[in-house]
Structures are given as structure tokens and as C-alpha cells.
């Protein structure tokens, strides 16, 4: 038996210290190439502009790169009690106000929305709000399952 060790008292905390994420074309192209996003708007600035975008468009799950970097401010903090060697990813969702494009400089706020213990397993849900200036761009909700330590 064992407990997950996750500190539920951090629910409600918001982490905002991650520096702004500068989205560039090469990062979008590399990510698009791996996940099989072959539409020209992900690769070719001319095609992207012709389609009405400011620059090449990030694939629909690219925001995870931004969110996971920001989440680590919470997840990797020893105060969270999360042992990453015992973590599996349980759920993920993206809500887009507008597509992310090359040239965006994006800020993040990671909200610790819930920690639910169930039989030595903790489900930890974070919500990362991604913004550009005063404008909302995307919301990434991620649930990690943290197994209890064996004893």
C-alpha cells in the first residue's frame, strides 16, 4: 500500500513564473512533421498568409509544448509531492480561441484545479491558460495519474 504523496493543499494555486514562449516557424514545422500535420499552412508562410493566417499555424496539439513547460513549475516543484517516475498521463484537452501562429509570444498561467485521491492513486488536474497580451489564445487541461509509492 501507500499514498501518492501529492499535496492537495496546493489546489487553487496559480503558477505564472515561466518566461514567455516565443513561437517560431522551425518549432512549428518540426512538430508538424512528427505528428503528421501535412497541410501547407503548417509549413509554408506563403500558404498560411494566403489562407488568412499571419504566419505558419501550429498543429492542434502544439500548445502542449507550451503547457508542459509551464506545468513543470508546479509538477517539478518538490512542494507538489509529485514523483514523476510514478506519473502517467490520463487525460488532455485543448480549447482554442484562435490558432497559435509563428511570431506569437505567449504567456502562461498554470492553475492547480484538483487533486483527487483514490486508492493510493492521485488524479492531478491542471489548467494552463495561454494568453497573448490581454487576449486569451488557448486553454490546456491536463490530468496526471500519480501512483502511490510501494512500501
Amino acid at each position, binding site marked *: 500500500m501507500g499514498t501518492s504523496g501529492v499535496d492537495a493543499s496546493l489546489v487553487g494555486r496559480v503558477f505564472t513564473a515561466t518566461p514567455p514562449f516565443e513561437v517560431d516557424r522551425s518549432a512549428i514545422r518540426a512538430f508538424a512533421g512528427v505528428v503528421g500535420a*501535412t497541410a501547407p499552412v503548417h509549413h509554408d508562410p506563403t500558404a498560411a498568409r494566403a489562407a488568412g493566417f499571419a504566419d505558419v499555424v501550429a*498543429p492542434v496539439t502544439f500548445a502542449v509544448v507550451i503547457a508542459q513547460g509551464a506545468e513543470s513549475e508546479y509538477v517539478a516543484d518538490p512542494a507538489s509531492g509529485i514523483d514523476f*517516475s510514478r506519473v502517467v498521463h490520463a487525460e*488532455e484537452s485543448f480549447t*482554442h480561441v484562435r490558432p497559435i501562429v509563428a511570431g506569437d509570444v505567449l504567456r502562461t498561467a498554470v492553475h492547480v484545479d484538483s487533486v483527487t485521491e483514490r486508492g493510493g492513486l492521485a488524479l492531478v488536474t491542471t489548467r494552463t491558460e495561454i494568453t497573448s497580451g490581454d487576449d486569451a489564445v488557448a486553454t490546456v487541461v491536463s490530468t496526471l495519474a500519480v501512483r502511490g509509492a510501494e512500501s
Partner: protein
Amino acid sequence: MSPLRTTDVGAELFVREVEITRELLVRYAGASGDVNAIHYNDAVAEAAGLPGVIAHGMLTMGLAGSALTDWLAGLDDDGVARVVRYGVRFSRPIVVPALGSTTLVVTGTLGARDDEAGTARVDLRAVCDGVTVLGKAQATITL
């Protein structure tokens, strides 16, 4: 008019097969910054209680999302921007062999349509070796 307004609910929209290799996992680690060793090192994966090296859940989600957005890009030039929400549960891991590949089959079906809201739900099925690897994989798109 968008063809989505006249497509029957329940209709299959697209199918895509993707070969998942260790090389793809390493490339995803580099492109995403997710360098957890369970996605490239057998010893670490086995020590974590896994049957072997597994694909990043987010790679699987990304591959399924691209099958959808590539299909949407075929509807109109800015079609990739139709996706307003995309969510999944990671129900089963994909074990990726050291040599060769395993095949992921992604199928998109029109799950529901809300003409008043101007949106539709696309249900994504992701199957590897006969096993469904994503649960409740759904995208909300604008019509």
C-alpha cells in the same frame, strides 16, 4: 456551403494509418521537449512496470489530431482553424518495438451536429493491434 452541414451524422469522414517507430518517438521527444526515458529506453520502461517502450500519449493524440486537421484543410484553405476543442483520455499505451513498427489506425466519424450553434462533434477512434488506445477522443469543429 460547408459539406459538414449536409453530411449524415454517423458518417465516416476519414481513415489514416500511421506507422509508429522508435525513430518517431525520438523525434517527438525532440520536437515536444518530453524526454521521459520510458519513450526510448527499454530498461527504464520495464523498471516503470511497462511491457516495453511506449509511445508518448501526446504523440498519439497529435497523430489523431493531424488526421482530422489534414482532412479539414481539404475542405478549405483555413480549415485547420475549425477545431475549437479537442480532448482525449489515454486508455491504453502503445508498445513500440525496437525494430520495425506498429500501425496506428485513426478513423474520424461525424458524431453530432448542432446547426444552431454552428458546430459539429467529430469522434476519433485510434486503434493499434486491435486495441483502442484513446478513449472519448472528440473534437468540436465549426461548420
